[in-house]
């Protein structure tokens, strides 16, 4: 309940001059920020998928904006992160999430009187990767991809997918249940149907990359960022969503509206504890900074940037808190 307090008066006046253009905005913002040197800490935990984005963001913030503020970023996972976020008197300030908050989690927040706000920070594309030696499956349709991972299809060999493919076992893999990526793939793409038996689910993405890079018959799914950094070790399948094959890239993932990589694209989030943001100016300041720089940092860390309108929505909300 106490979260509702409006301390905005105090921290007011630092700047009210938000414009639409984030780029020029950053410049304009620097000076007042230096006047009011903030301190204290900002605690972020949650999704490992969002971690690279958030880590970069935190580092830039400490380097360029507020040296006195300590931003720490954990990667406990979305659910464990919510566990730390939803704590009676003051858990983490932000929780990164690769999915939206679940009903139970929302209910718990309610119960504890924690007011939170959901921000989309970037877009991630599920990328289906294969071994570079694999020259037969470079382009697949959505249904072929699903069938490869679904138990119901009964596929075990590449030749089951297409008779022209080699008569070799398919080695399917992916991140394990710990990851939001798995949940998204399982719930949204596979529509919660049973996955193929014997699929190799791993905790670490590095393991997956290694596995695919060493096995000609391997196929795996994971976030675009992991593909982007390992283009020398694995290659991505261009997926035909009905209008011809689409290669995953920051552009295609970013095209959320019309033609693009859309069905395999998902937003990633961070959740802000609004009460804490009201109490601690550095938290609010960091939130604003994050939204202002989200597009740049996303591109640097293997995510597609959000549309300007989305960013502006978030900024409007945050500025309202001041």
């Amino acid at each position, binding site marked *: 309940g106490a979260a509702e307090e409006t301390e905005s008066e105090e921290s007011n006046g630092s700047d009210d001059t938000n414009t639409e253009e984030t780029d020029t905005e950053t410049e304009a913002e620097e000076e007042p920020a230096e006047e009011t040197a903030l301190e204290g*800490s900002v*605690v972020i*935990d949650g999704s490992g998928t969002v*971690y*690279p984005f*958030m*880590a*970069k963001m*935190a*580092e830039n913030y*400490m380097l360029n904006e507020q040296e006195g503020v*300590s*931003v*720490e*970023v*954990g*990667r*406990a996972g979305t659910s464990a992160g919510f566990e730390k976020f939803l704590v009676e008197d003051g858990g983490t300030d932000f929780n990164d999430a690769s999915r939206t908050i679940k009903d139970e989690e929302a209910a718990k927040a309610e119960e504890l009187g924690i007011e939170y706000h959901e921000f989309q920070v970037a877009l991630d594309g599920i990328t289906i990767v294969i071994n570079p030696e694999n020259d037969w499956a470079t382009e697949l349709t959505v249904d072929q991809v699903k069938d490869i991972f679904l138990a119901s299809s009964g596929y075990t060999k590449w030749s089951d997918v297409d008779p022209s493919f080699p008569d070799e076992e398919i080695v399917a893999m992916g991140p394990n249940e710990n990851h939001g990526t798995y949940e998204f793939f399982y719930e949204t793409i596979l529509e919660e149907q049973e996955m193929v038996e014997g699929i190799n689910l791993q905790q*670490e*993405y*590095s393991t*997956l*990359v*290694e596995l695919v890079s060493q096995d000609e018959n391997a196929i795996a799914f994971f976030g675009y*960022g*992991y593909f982007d*950094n*390992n283009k020398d070790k694995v290659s991505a399948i261009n997926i035909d969503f009905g209008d011809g094959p689409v290669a995953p890239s920051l552009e295609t993932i970013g095209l959320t509206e019309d033609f693009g990589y859309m069905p395999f694209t998902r937003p990633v989030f961070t959740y802000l504890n609004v009460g804490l943001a009201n109490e601690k100016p550095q938290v609010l300041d960091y939130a604003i900074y994050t939204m202002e720089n989200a597009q740049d940092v996303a591109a640097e860390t*293997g995510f597609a940037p959000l549309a300007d309108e989305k960013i502006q929505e978030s900024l409007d909300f945050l500025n309202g808190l001041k």
Partner: protein
Amino acid sequence: MKYIDVEQVNKNMSPRIFKNNLAKSIFFVAAIFGLLVLITLIYRVFSDSIGWIDINFLMSKLSTDAERAGIFGAIMGTVWLMVVVAPVTIFLGVGTAIYLEEYAKKGRVRNIIQTNISNLAGVPSVVFGILGLTVFVRAMGLGNIILAGGLTMALLILPIVVVASQEAIRAVPQFLREASYGMGATKWQTIKNIVLPAAIPGISTGVILSLSRAIGETAPLVVIGIPALIIPIPDSVFDKFTIMPMQIYYWTIDSALVDEYANLAAATIVILLIILFLMNSIAIIIRNKFQKRF
């Protein structure tokens, strides 16, 4: 009446000596095996770290940018961790050892404590991690700060320190105690003035070795949950922190994201190994120097 056939015995002699020499070679190879593994391991790590270790790496803060990243924070985290671990384990470990060796009567209490310590020594470190998570981080509400990590580590290495200190105390010859008692000294006077000073080399060896174990230990801190990115340098035991092994862990699992992280991990391993090597050398020097004094 002769049972021993001298001829036969002499004929057997050569094969027996040959077997002995053969076995000796095999045992030697086995003993060298460890050395070979060590060389391979160190070679691998060093070659990955070449070009990455310099003063900037040691003195810079953590960064997501591999070129700028340094382990100063991790080093200071380790130092602060030791600031908690060392006094706590020395106090508890040496105290326990004195109690067991000098005061506890042979019997139930002593057996229980002794058995308990041997058992604790065998408890996997992840389990200590869970204890630390449940008790220090959550129940006591400390959070994942240096103090909580340090207390967990202190309990983890406590058995090693106890056992090493016990051995050191036991190695103090009885005749020194007798000499002291013979002068009319009380028990505590004898312990304080004679036994502990004589046992200090042994105790310090044990303490250093167990601290080096704590420095390299990862699992309990993974369980306790250390932020993956923590840039500010800790300056008290109430700060959040990271340590070198955690950095190695995160950098390696993230090497899929940024290739250079693997080099950073290797470079950190090299620094960690150098620190451990120095600690071990000090321990061995102390041990050799004071080994035979009586």
